[in-house]
């Protein structure tokens, strides 16, 4: 039969193929990438390589930029200010007028081979001081109403750097164009008035030659740099306008930019891959000659917002390092994962209760006696024991100072002076006595807090139950829009939230407590405090700075301004295949020493 013959032929063909191929499993290139690598989970996606714009200033960006933009200084995990001389040096030449000289090292280089030099610093100054901005220019007036775009109808002769700088702090105080040295390696800045945090005013710059290339169309690096210096020194509005536009938006990208120029790096790593909203990958920068040469060839940061998902990804080996929002459950879950190390420490944020001294909802706290009574029944120890101790373990500590991080220089002194230790445990009788003295019965306290934050909801429940014992009627003013309500007259009586420290500078202290300060939400006013703040802002003596802050702590507590509760805990967990990971309380937290990390085989 015909069919049978076909069948036989096919079978023969099959058998032949079998013999020919020799029955061996096929082997060919898998094309897999097998270099050393580490994956870090972070809760937000990267979106701008310029962390100095009001738009790009976010932790998620600054972590990555820290790896690609070398700078003069950084914070270690103590935290203490450290200098990177392999990038350059910062010298205080004179206190009056305040003169600071920045000198770049020869090892400071961009990954495309160009040196980091005065042109880069000068452009940073122009951006961070806004001294060359067109005066009284209202950027929003020129926004295209149809699309909202910034550039289309933007006047070409208007200089506008979106750095959010103000003329009374930081580089904003340097009004005159800095002087560039002859070798083009150093820049000298003269402040118009004393500024205590001058050390922090400038860090790593963006590549001026890349900005000039895009803004002015100059391909050659040296020519581009010369053009930038020219434009700034001669205040060439037309060129500066283009430069500022590129500085503002040229480095914003949410996936791999079309132009590789935008990835030029002066730091130990270089961005090589960026999948929108999923991850960003950096490889070691081969052109980097500074002192932080990394051990690990490739760093990937995956964007995982959910802490539980991050913990599961760590358990599943998909990420190696996580630093999720810490909760007791999360820590306990992490403890069940094998072959990882968990470090718990304190972060840069502290929780506190502020009392509305004026303009409050019920006027409860106008009387200092009532304020003191309320502080006596805030269950600080209970909050710590129930909400924080399960995370940080037995070493959990109350934060006892408005101005000092626990363990920092001056903290112990402040504790002794202010006598905050008396407020640790709830003192119902003391509070009742004070209320009786003030002649108030069952005062009403509407407490504002973030109702979408489970921990704050729990804190509210604890405070409410505890204060009720002394006769306080604590009502719920919780809201998701708590941030917008802060400082709103008549909206609430007390607030529960956290302040985050982002630097060790002292110029951020004043605005919280001085009369009319932008962060003084409780309408607090004390001439003594105002005088101390004024002195602090102009005092270069480190010891005196600490003394003033200790005094401030005491005054604030004596006035029953409010009370601090705890330092936010921070949990870092990492796979045991890594060594050298240790987080810092200040940004960039776990990334601060990424060049010290090493991959060690667990087996």
């Amino acid at each position, binding site marked *: 039969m015909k069919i049978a013959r076909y069948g036989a032929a096919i079978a023969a063909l099959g058998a032949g193929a079998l013999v020919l191929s020799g029955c061996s499993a096929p082997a060919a290139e898998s094309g897999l990438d097998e270099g050393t690598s580490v994956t870090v989970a972070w809760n937000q996606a990267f979106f701008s390589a310029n962390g100095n714009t009001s738009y790009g200033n976010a932790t998620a960006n600054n972590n990555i930029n820290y790896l690609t933009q070398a700078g003069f200084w950084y914070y270690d995990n103590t935290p203490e200010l450290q200098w990177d001389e392999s990038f350059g040096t910062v010298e205080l030449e004179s206190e009056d007028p305040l003169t600071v000289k920045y000198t770049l090292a020869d090892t400071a280089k961009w990954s495309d081979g160009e040196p980091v030099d005065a042109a880069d610093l000068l452009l940073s100054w122009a951006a961070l001081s806004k001294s060359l901005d067109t005066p009284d220019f209202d950027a929003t007036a020129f926004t295209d109403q149809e699309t909202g775009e910034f550039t289309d109808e933007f006047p070409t002769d208007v200089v506008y750097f979106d750095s959010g700088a103000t003329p009374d702090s930081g580089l904003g105080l340097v009004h005159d164009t800095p002087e560039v040295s002859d070798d083009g390696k150093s820049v000298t800045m003269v402040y118009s008035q004393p500024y205590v945090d001058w050390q922090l005013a400038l860090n790593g710059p963006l590549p001026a030659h890349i900005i000039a290339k895009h803004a002015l169309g100059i391909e050659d690096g040296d020519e581009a740099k010369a053009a930038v210096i020219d434009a700034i020194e001669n205040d060439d509005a037309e060129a500066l306008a283009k430069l500022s536009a590129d500085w503002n938006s040229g480095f914003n990208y949410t996936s791999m930019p079309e132009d590789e120029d935008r990835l030029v790096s002066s730091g130990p790593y270089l961005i090589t891959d960026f999948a929108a909203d999923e991850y960003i990958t950096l490889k070691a920068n081969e052109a980097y000659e500074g002192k932080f040469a990394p051990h690990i060839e490739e760093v990937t940061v995956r964007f995982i917002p959910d*802490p539980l998902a991050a913990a599961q990804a760590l358990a599943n080996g998909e990420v190696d390092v996580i630093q999720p929002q810490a909760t007791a*459950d999360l820590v*306990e879950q992490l403890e069940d994962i094998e072959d990882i190390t968990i470090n718990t420490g304190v972060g840069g944020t502290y929780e506190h209760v502020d009392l509305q001294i004026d303009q409050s909802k019920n006027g409860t706290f106008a009387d200092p006696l009532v304020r003191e009574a309320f502080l006596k029944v805030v269950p600080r120890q209970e909050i710590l024991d*129930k*909400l924080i101790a399960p995370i940080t373990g037995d070493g959990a500590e109350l934060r006892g100072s408005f101005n000092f991080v626990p363990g920092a220089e001056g903290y112990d002194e402040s504790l002794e002076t202010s006598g905050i230790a008396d407020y640790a445990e709830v003192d119902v009788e003391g509070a009742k006595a004070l209320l009786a003295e003030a002649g108030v019965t069952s005062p009403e306290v509407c407490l504002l807090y973030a109702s*979408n934050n489970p921990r704050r*909801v729990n804190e509210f429940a*604890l405070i409410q139950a505890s204060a009720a014992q002394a006769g306080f009627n604590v009502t*719920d003013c919780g809201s998701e829009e708590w941030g917008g309500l802060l400082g709103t007259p008549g909206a609430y009586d007390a607030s529960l939230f956290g302040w985050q420290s982002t630097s060790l500078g002292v110029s951020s202290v004043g605005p919280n407590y001085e009369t009319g300060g932008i962060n003084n939400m409780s309408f607090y006013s004390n001439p003594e405090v105002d005088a101390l703040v004024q002195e602090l802002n102009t005092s270069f003596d480190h010891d005196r700075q600490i003394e003033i802050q200790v005094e401030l702590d005491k005054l604030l507590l004596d006035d029953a301004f409010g009370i601090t509760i705890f330092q936010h805990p921070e949990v870092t967990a990492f796979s045991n295949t890594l060594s050298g990971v240790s987080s810092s309380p200040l940004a960039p937290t776990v990334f601060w020493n990424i060049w010290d990390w090493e991959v060690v085989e667990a087996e």
Partner: protein
Amino acid sequence: MSLNSSIIEPIPGEPTPDIDGTPVEDRGPIDGRDTKGLSQGQIVRKRFFRHRAAVISLAVLVFVIVLSYSSVGLHVGGLHLAGWWPWHWTTPLPVVDRGHPTLNLVPGPDFGIGPHPFGQDEIGRDVFAIVMRGAQQSIMIMVIVGIVSTFIGIVFGALSGYYRGWVDSVLMRFTDVIITIPFLVVGAVIGNMIGNLGAALLAVGLGLFSWTSLARIIRGEFLSLREREFVDAARLSGASDRRIIFKHILPNSIGVITVSATLAMAAAILGETALSYIGFGVKPPDTSLGTIISENQAAFNTRPWIFWWPGVFIVSIALCVNFIGDGLRDAFDPRQKKMPSARAFARAASRQALRDHRAATKSAKAANGAKV
């Protein structure tokens, strides 16, 4: 492939009495039941109670409702009735044994429910009280969504099905518009808008957008019923539109309405849960089962009782409502009749065969007799 069971499927019957009065030869179902004269309500009730899963579900649901409302009391608006459970769901208590549940069903010295049968949460609140409060809220949301969506669905479906024409076009195009918006999408927006104003308002908001399939089904039902002879008869005898809609057509579509309403309710409880998970449902300090789970999802490995108990209640409520809906559908729909067991079939078939045989022999005898 064998098709035995479907071959002996009963022929779909007619739900309404015969109009023209000609007696229809109906031997009834093969098992010989359902032949007595019963009102529709009685038939439905009887059929429903024969659906075992639905009856069990109804019992469980009633138990859950009674338990949740009696235990932590009724708190609606200014009205506060204390329940028999000692703890309030907002009272922080000292945390005992990391908040482990004290419920112990293993016979022995620790047998019993203990002070905190479902355990305690992070700051020592009693999880049983929280879950009961959450169940109250979730049930309330379910019922309100059910009522609101059924009401709107009936109005839209009845008007467009009864009046047809441009009324129908306008209402159904509007229904199409609303149906294009996925429940979760509109729910998230509404939740974000009014979620912090309380569970009841959220439920009303959700109800305003979940009536669409109900309206379509009721419209279909009205379209077919309005052509029926009994409606014509009513119209001829001078009944008003209102009377025809409320007295004649609506009672006849009660089955479809009930079934759709239960399914909408089951969907509502799950919808609220999903919304709470992405943060747009009931907001703290108020609570619902979904909110409890989403707030404590990190605890599912470490303190599983906070995660599992609300989950168990969600699943049981949704499961019960779904099964009740299934039972109601079977009860109202004569075609979806619960089949008797194979043995009952065999017995009935043999009885029938016997009857047929007797009838045959009788008529044969009669025939013979005539001949003789």
